[in-house]
């Protein structure tokens, strides 16, 4: 549940920023991290249908900095497009073990 202040700020952002389709977001923010508010996301689909881009940045470090500096407004974090692939790099997210120290 948003507080009055968060709702007020969110409403101002929405009023000044256009809601874009996912295709438009892909065209305008390729290879960027975006924070979407007022988004539509069909259940079970990998990408949203549309949304208002509140914050965007080329790197996740910069993106996280902007998120932490900004008002705490709920939204969706998503990277647009696919990252550059390197032929000699295998993407492996898994960690084998996690222990309580």
């Amino acid at each position, binding site marked *: 549940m948003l507080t009055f202040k*968060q709702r007020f700020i969110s409403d101002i952002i929405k009023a000044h920023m256009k809601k874009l389709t996912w295709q438009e977001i892909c065209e305008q923010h390729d290879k960027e991290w975006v924070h979407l508010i007022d988004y539509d996301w069909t*259940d079970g689909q990998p990408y949203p249908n549309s949304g208002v881009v509140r914050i965007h940045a080329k790197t996740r470090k910069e993106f996280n900095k902007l*998120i932490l500096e900004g008002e705490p407004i709920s939204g969706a974090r998503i990277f647009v497009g696919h990252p550059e*692939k390197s032929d000699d790099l295998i993407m492996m*997210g898994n*960690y084998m*073990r*996690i222990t309580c120290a």
Partner: protein
Amino acid sequence: MRLIHFDRSQEIPIVDALVFGPRKHERLRLVFDSGCGKTQVDTCVIESIGYSVSNSIGVTVVKGPSGDMQEGYLVKVKDFQLFGMSFSNMEIGAHDFDQFAKYEIDGLLGFDVIKQLRFELDGPEGLLKIY
């Protein structure tokens, strides 16, 4: 049955989830990773929704196949929603995902959650069927 579509052009399977904290909630992209024991989210995301190390219920260390170690902490998040299911007070590891900064993920959906699901993965169709 719930059908979850994933993008087959991605190198790894990525699903989205909602994580709720005291400040706000965020929709995240997590790797569907049965090789990871515990669900982990980037520390910055955990902090942005309103938790910090002062809310931790334990310090954690993760070890990868290459032997690299990284410290983090465990927090109980208010709610975690995935595929229409809700996991209240779920323990999540907060770890820096700086190594994955170039990639499109904010964390790992671990086997602690995956083992609670009945599912079928149809790779050629890019579908995850949740029963």
